[in-house]
């Protein structure tokens, strides 16, 4: 029994989550002790930033000695570390981009930061989870804090609606996932991904029941990454949630959900890839089409970005469908580039929207370039990256994904994906044109200058987008090495 007791190596591999939990708890405890604060608590903001930075350092340090932890519950490898660092980085960017919004709505408090850190802790667990039970608990930690964050503006009906829809549909999807997990346990006698993989590779498991359980788990995961036909929640949730929360939801939890999606379907279900690939093929195509064509008709920019986020999940699904190391690496690169872009874009949206999120129409962005050139410039960088213009991260992201798809022989999916990207260019360009050529709108004329923290967030996200677009090789090489999942 002694061998089951944790060693120091276990704790080092779990260090990022420990740091996030401890700092999150501190933030929660300090919240009632720091008084009213009039909706502004910079000391807690800096504590959250310090905690996230420390957690990132811990995640990188843990990678120095990769391996399993806590009886095979976690597996710290390149893939897990990549996603841990990615979600922590997304969290850092979110804190910088959220501060103006929170202060404006008098909602900057310890609970927001505590929930954010707890959510990220759950996503780090998801990134390194190598066992279905801990994977499920990590997913629940991430999801439940996300539901609460979506409803964080208690007085705002849109925010309440967003949280309620997210919660009800999310719990429903979680039920499917759990049912699939129960079946897998019944069929293979294990919840450990490596053991499941070995059992399935050895054969003898009833193929139809296995397909049933894989299908149930697919439903759960597809919901979490907002892949069609399980994407209907995304527009309402992203539209109603506070903008910084929408930014975070479309980047952090989505990346972590793709991490478990990729890990489960390439390791545990890797041996039956030829059977799940057609389903993924259809889902990827449907997701791209639904996202892009619905985004064309949106006048609310948050809703447009929500549909765009669905479309981008479709591109990543193309990479997952290709079921190869190249495809996994492409998905990793894409999610990284997409996370920074999307947090940045939502940060500009929350800035223009002003108090109470009044100005969220695309027309409200008219003439932004004339009044707030920096905001317009970074928004242009983000949207060109979302289109996939060269010199931005989005270009290489799409390039690697479609290359992986072609390598896997999926010519039709590649062609249809490229056509979809062309459609997508229209609705992004529309916003850029409005920002640069139209007369300034009332909303834009009333804008106060952005705080230095928000400007830092914008510039950091834009710089990351350009850096990945000009020098993609360093990150891609790491991703290619890390993408070999066992």
């Amino acid at each position, binding site marked *: 029994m002694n061998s*089951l007791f944790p060693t120091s190596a276990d704790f080092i591999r779990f260090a990022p989550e420990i740091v996030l939990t401890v700092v999150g708890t501190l933030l929660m405890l300090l919240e009632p002790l720091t008084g009213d604060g009039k909706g502004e608590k910079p000391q807690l903001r800096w504590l959250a930033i310090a905690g996230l930075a420390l957690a990132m350092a811990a995640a990188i340090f843990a990678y120095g000695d990769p391996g399993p932890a*806590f009886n095979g519950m976690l597996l710290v490898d390149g893939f897990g570390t990549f996603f841990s660092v990615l979600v922590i980085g997304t969290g850092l960017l979110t804190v910088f981009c959220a501060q103006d919004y929170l202060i404006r709505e008098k909602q900057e408090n310890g*609970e927001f930061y505590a929930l954010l850190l707890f959510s990220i802790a759950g996503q780090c667990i998801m990134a390194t989870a190598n066992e279905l*039970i801990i994977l499920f608990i990590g997913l629940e930690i991430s999801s*439940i*804090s996300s*539901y609460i964050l979506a409803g*964080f503006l208690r007085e705002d009906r849109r925010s309440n609606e967003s949280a309620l829809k997210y919660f009800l549909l999310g719990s429903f999807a979680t039920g499917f996932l759990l049912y699939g997990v129960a079946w897998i346990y019944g069929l293979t006698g294990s919840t450990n991904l490596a053991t499941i993989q070995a059992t399935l590779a050895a054969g003898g498991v009833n193929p*139809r029941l296995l397909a*049933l359980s894989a299908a149930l788990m697919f439903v759960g995961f597809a919901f979490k990454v907002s892949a069609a036909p399980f994407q209907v929640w995304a527009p309402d949730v992203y539209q109603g949630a506070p903008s910084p929360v929408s930014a975070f939801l479309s980047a952090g939890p989505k990346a972590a959900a793709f991490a478990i999606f990729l890990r489960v379907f390439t390791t545990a279900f890797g041996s039956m890839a030829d059977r799940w690939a057609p389903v993924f093929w259809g889902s990827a195509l449907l997701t791209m089409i639904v996202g892009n064509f619905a985004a064309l008709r949106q006048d609310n920019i948050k809703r447009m970005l929500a549909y765009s986020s669905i479309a981008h999940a479709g591109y990543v699904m193309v990479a997952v469908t290709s079921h190869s190391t190249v495809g996994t690496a492409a998905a990793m690169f894409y999610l990284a580039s997409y996370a920074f872009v999307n947090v940045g874009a939502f940060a500009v949206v929350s800035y223009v929207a002003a108090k109470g999120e009044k100005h969220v129409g695309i027309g409200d962005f008219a003439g932004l370039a004339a009044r707030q050139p920096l905001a317009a410039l970074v928004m242009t960088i983000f949207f060109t990256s979302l289109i996939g213009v060269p010199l931005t991260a989005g270009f290489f992201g799409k390039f690697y994904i479609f290359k992986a798809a072609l390598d896997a022989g999926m010519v039709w999916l590649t062609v249809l994906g490229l056509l979809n990207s062309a459609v997508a260019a229209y609705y992004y360009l529309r916003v850029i044109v409005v920002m640069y050529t139209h007369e300034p709108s009332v909303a834009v004329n009333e804008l106060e200058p952005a705080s230095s923290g928000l400007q830092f967030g914008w510039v950091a996200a834009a710089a990351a987008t350009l850096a990945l677009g000009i020098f993609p090789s360093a990150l891609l090489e790491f991703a290619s090495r890390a993408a070999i999942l066992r």
Partner: protein
Amino acid sequence: MIPMPNLDVLGFLVLATFAVLCGLSVILQKHAVASALSLVGVMGSLAVLYLMLGAEFLAAVQMIVYAGAIMVLFVFVIMLLNSGSERPAKARYFAYLVGIPSLLAFLGVISFFILKELPNTSSVQFGAFTQGGPAPVGRLLFTQYLLPFEVTSLLVLIAIIGAMVLAKKEID
């Protein structure tokens, strides 16, 4: 020839039928309190089903947490909303047209697969599995699965913050 059901199978059938009937009653009752009471029936029969499978600890937890604590919360919420009798909702033919067939199809597919693929599964046998008491569960939970156990406390903590954050509007 239909095999004669033994006592265990008979017990299972009675409880399962009771659970399903209570479940239907939950969604068909017009009054919210009646639904809540039906839910107690579901929870109770599930607890006995767990017990029949040998999951003694789980059965006790089911009674304490679900039939006890969660039902208390449900009744609180019903009183909080003071909804009384449910107004007959506007007939959503689309929901009925799509929802009921998909539910039946889902159940049909699952039962078809189970019956076809696992025809000779041994039936319920009360007392066959004895590792479901608190001691075996504790031994596993505090050694092999200690990480999920510890991480669960974080989940509870999030729920505490969530309850405060989302209910605070009315308190202040």
